[in-house]
Structures are given as structure tokens and as C-alpha cells.
């Protein structure tokens, strides 16, 4: 092996050069991506708040017969005693924080608990279900199960607990146990 002894300066010079090249590559590729977006027919604002995009998209994906509830409507609804609010997330998440008045109906247990729940519920009862946020499908699935069992006024709060918390609305934690 005829390699010269490596000193720290050589290593540093090598690394600095390679890291600089890597940074330039990232900048060039990123610029290409942003530029390509500008010529796409389905281009979008790179700085858009994606939560809002997802919530909007959620309204277009609502199952048939299921209503969508926006944040402003939810603020009114959660205070009303005639609205039945269901949190579809796993019970652990419910304990960590849920919308005041919501009952825990984890999707995984829905098939088991729904018959007893719905037995006492009028068909015209307004039910609002939610999960983590716009990206989780659980609220859609529970809403579909409920309409399939004859409930006529089932709605999904698409922003979910994520939007609720981020807008500074109150949440309830289950403590002790």
C-alpha cells in the first residue's frame, strides 16, 4: 500500500468539498421540482397549509348520506345537548384528550358496541364523529357503519382533534385510573 498518511486537513478538505457538492445538488434538484410544479396543470402553492387542503379534500370524499362539519359549525354543535359526539380513536388517545362531551367509540370496537348504543338512539339523532384529523379514515368508517344501521343524521367533523386543539379549543383529559 503506497497510501500517504492521511492528515486531518486532507480529510476536512475532502469532506467540505463533498458536502458542498451535495448541498448544490439538493438546491438544484429542489429548484427543478418547484419549477416543474409551475408548468403542471394540477400545480399547487408550495407554501399552502396542507391541513386546510386535506380538510377540503375530505368533504369531497364523504360517504354517501354522511354530512361534513366545518370548524365553525363544530364550535356551535359541541355545546348542544342534543348532539351525540363520538371519538373514533383508540381509547388511549381518547384519554389523552378529547372534545368535551364526546364518547369514546374506537373503530376497532364499533361492531361490538354499536348495537347496544343505537338501540336507545332515535333514528333522527344528530351524531357527529371525528378522529385524529383529516388524514385519518376512521371517522368515515364509523359514520358509514352508523348510517348502515339506520341513523339518518350522521356527520363527520373533518378537522378532527388536531384542528380542534390547534385552534385553542378546550379538550378534556381522562385522569387517574
Amino acid at each position, binding site marked *: 500500500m503506497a497510501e500517504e498518511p492521511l492528515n486531518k486537513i*486532507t480529510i476536512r478538505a475532502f469532506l467540505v468539498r463533498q458536502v458542498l457538492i451535495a448541498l448544490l445538488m439538493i438546491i438544484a434538484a429542489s429548484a427543478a421540482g418547484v419549477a416543474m410544479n409551475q408548468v403542471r396543470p394540477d400545480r399547487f402553492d408550495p407554501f*399552502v397549509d396542507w391541513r386546510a387542503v386535506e380538510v377540503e379534500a375530505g368533504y369531497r370524499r364523504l360517504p354517501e348520506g354522511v354530512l361534513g362539519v366545518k370548524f365553525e359549525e363544530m364550535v356551535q354543535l359541541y355545546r348542544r345537548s342534543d348532539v351525540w359526539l363520538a371519538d373514533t380513536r383508540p381509547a388511549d388517545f381518547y384519554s389523552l384528550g378529547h372534545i368535551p362531551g364526546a364518547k369514546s367509540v374506537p373503530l376497532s370496537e364499533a361492531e361490538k358496541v354499536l348495537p347496544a348504543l343505537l338501540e336507545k338512539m332515535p333514528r333522527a339523532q344528530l351524531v357527529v364523529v371525528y378522529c385524529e384529523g383529516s388524514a385519518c379514515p376512521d371517522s368515515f368508517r364509523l359514520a358509514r357503519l352508523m348510517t348502515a344501521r339506520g341513523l339518518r343524521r350522521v356527520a363527520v367533523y373533518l378537522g378532527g382533534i388536531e384542528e380542534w386543539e390547534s385552534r385553542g379549543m378546550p379538550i378534556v383529559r381522562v385522569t387517574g385510573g
Partner: protein
Amino acid sequence: MAGRLGFVFFLARITLGFVFVYASVDKIFNPSDFARVIYAYKILPAGWVGLVALELPWVELAIGLLLLVGRLVWSSALIAAALLLGFSGAIGYNLARGFNFQCGCFSTARDAQAVGLMTLVRDLALLVPVFLLLVGGLRRGLSRPADADRPPRS
């Protein structure tokens, strides 16, 4: 011996290059679907998701192509290492907090694979060829700086 080692480097470079090019294509054609996947990871702020969805696939494509043609290999491997560590961290973090989420690794389709421990293992396994290229390239680059950007052969 040198020839066999050269073949290992060649294989590492081509495998990685192919994986990154393949991973980038679907995301480049469907950036808004990819943004939805990134958003569902719930790691990046919602205001960054769109920008990252537009840029990340092009970075993957760039390093994939460069690895395939054997140019700027060390820098490409460095970016690959950073990306794979980042992906593994994001996947591991979400697995740890019990999320059921879509990988978005190779496809942005809604019915694409859900993430499991195997996804994490695969990402970490890809670090092996990356590590080979980095170490091989570093040794070669230090002894012959002018060749640092060429693929290591011995």
C-alpha cells in the same frame, strides 16, 4: 481480490441508484398525493408539506441517476444516507407512537402498503450499500483526491 471488491461497489451503486430512481417516479407524477402521505406522517409542519413533496422526489431522482451513471457518487451517497436516516427516523417514530400510516416509499396510491417493521428494516438495510460507497469513496478520495467523484473500483 480488487476485482471482486470493485464488483461489490458497482453492485452497491447500481442497486441504490435503481432504488432511488424507482422511488422518485410515482412521487414526481403525483406530488399532491405524495404531499398527502407526508402530511399523514404528522411530523412536518403543515406549511412545509407542499414544498417538501415537490422537492424531495427530484432529489431522489438526481442522486439515483448520478449513482447509476457513476458521477458525484460520494456526494450522492451522502445525501442517500441522510435521506434514509431521515425516513427511518420518521417511520420508527410513527411506529413507536402506534400510528397506522401509509409509507409513501415507492407509491403514493391510497391502497399502497401500510407501514410495518419490515419497512423500517428495508430502509436500514439500504444503508449498507450507502456505507460501502462512503467508506470506499473516502479511502479512494483521500489517496487520489481527483478521483473522489468517480465510483470506487478498488
